[in-house]
C-alpha cells in the first residue's frame, strides 16, 4: 500500500517536471536555432551558456533557502503558485484546442525571429544582438523550468529526482533538436501543455489542502484522483468551448 501511494506521487511529479521542462526547452531551442542559423552559432552559444550560468546561480541562491521553510508553509505557497500557473496553462490550452486562440506555432516564431534578426543588419565585431536574443530565450524559458523544479522538488521532498527528470528532459529535447536540426514544430505542444496544466493543478490542489491541514483520503494516492478529475473537466471545457467556436463561425457565415 505504502509503495503504491509513494509511486503514484512520484509518477505525477516526474510527469509534471518532464513535460513542463520539455515544452519550455522546445520554445527556447526554437529561438536559439533561429539565432544560430541567422547570425552564427558562436554568439548564440555564448548567450546560451551565459543564461545557464545565471540560472544555476539563481538555483544555488534560492534552492537551499527553500529547504529551510517549514513544509506546510512551503506547500501552501507552492500549491497556490501551482494552482494559478496550472490554471493559466489549462485556460490557454483549452482556448487553443477549441480554436479561440491561435496555436503556438514554432514555425511562425522561428520565421519571425529570423526576420527580426535579419532586419537588425550585419554585426560589427561581436554580435551583441545574437547574444542577447539567445540569452533572453534560454533565460526566460529556463526560469520557468527552475521555478517548476524548485517548487515541485522541494515540496515533494524529492529535489534530486525533480532535477534529474528536468535534466533528462532538457538533454532529450536537445538531442532530438540537434538530430532533426529544425525548430521542433512537429512536437504536439498544446497537448503537452494541457497535460502539464492538469498535473500542476492536481499538485496545486493537493498541496494547498496539505498546507491548510486538510487530510486527503489515501494520502498521496489522492493525487491520481485529481489527475483523473481535472482531465475530465478539461476535456469537457474544451468540448464546450469548441462547440461555442463552431457555432460562432456558423453564425458569421449565415
Amino acid at each position: 500500500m505504502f509503495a503504491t501511494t509513494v509511486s503514484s506521487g512520484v509518477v505525477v511529479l516526474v510527469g509534471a517536471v518532464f513535460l513542463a521542462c520539455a515544452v519550455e526547452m522546445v520554445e527556447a531551442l526554437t529561438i536559439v536555432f533561429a539565432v544560430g542559423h541567422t547570425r552564427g552559432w558562436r554568439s548564440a552559444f555564448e548567450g546560451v551558456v551565459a543564461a545557464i550560468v545565471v540560472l544555476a546561480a539563481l538555483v544555488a541562491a534560492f534552492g537551499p533557502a527553500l529547504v529551510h521553510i517549514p513544509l506546510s508553509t512551503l506547500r501552501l505557497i507552492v500549491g497556490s503558485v501551482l494552482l494559478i500557473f496550472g490554471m493559466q496553462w489549462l485556460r490557454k490550452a483549452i482556448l487553443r484546442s477549441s480554436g479561440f486562440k491561435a496555436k503556438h506555432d514554432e514555425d511562425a516564431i522561428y520565421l519571425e525571429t529570423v526576420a527580426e534578426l535579419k532586419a537588425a543588419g550585419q554585426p560589427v565585431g561581436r554580435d551583441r544582438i545574437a547574444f542577447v536574443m539567445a540569452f533572453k530565450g534560454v533565460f526566460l524559458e529556463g526560469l520557468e523550468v527552475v521555478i517548476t523544479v524548485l517548487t515541485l522538488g522541494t515540496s515533494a521532498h524529492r529535489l534530486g529526482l525533480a532535477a534529474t527528470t528536468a535534466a533528462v528532459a532538457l538533454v532529450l529535447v536537445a538531442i532530438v533538436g540537434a538530430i532533426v536540426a529544425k525548430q521542433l514544430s512537429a512536437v504536439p505542444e498544446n497537448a503537452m501543455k494541457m497535460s502539464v496544466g492538469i498535473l500542476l493543478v492536481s499538485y496545486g490542489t493537493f498541496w494547498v489542502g496539505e498546507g491548510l491541514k486538510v487530510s486527503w483520503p489515501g494520502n498521496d494516492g489522492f493525487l491520481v484522483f485529481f489527475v483523473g478529475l481535472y482531465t475530465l473537466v478539461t476535456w469537457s471545457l474544451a468540448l464546450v468551448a469548441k462547440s461555442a467556436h463552431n457555432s460562432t463561425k456558423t453564425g458569421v457565415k449565415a
Partner: protein
Amino acid sequence: MSEEKSLAARLLKGFAMFWWDFLVGDTPELFIAVVGVLAVIAGIRGAGHNSVAVVVLPVLVILALTLSVRRSVAQAKKK
C-alpha cells in the same frame, strides 16, 4: 552611489514585474480566485470540517477555471 541605487531599483522593479506577469498577467480572475479558495478552505478547516474541505477545494478550483475560460471565450467572441 546613485547609479548603484538605480541599478538596484531596476532589478527590484524587474523582479516585481516578473512575478506580477507570472501570477497575475492577463488572468487576474485566477489570482483572485485562488486567494478566495485559500480563505474559504482555511475557514472550513478552522471550523473542523475536513471532509467538507476535501470536496469544496477541488469544486472551487473547477469553478474558477470554468469562469476564467468562459470569460476568455466571451472576450474572444466580442473581437
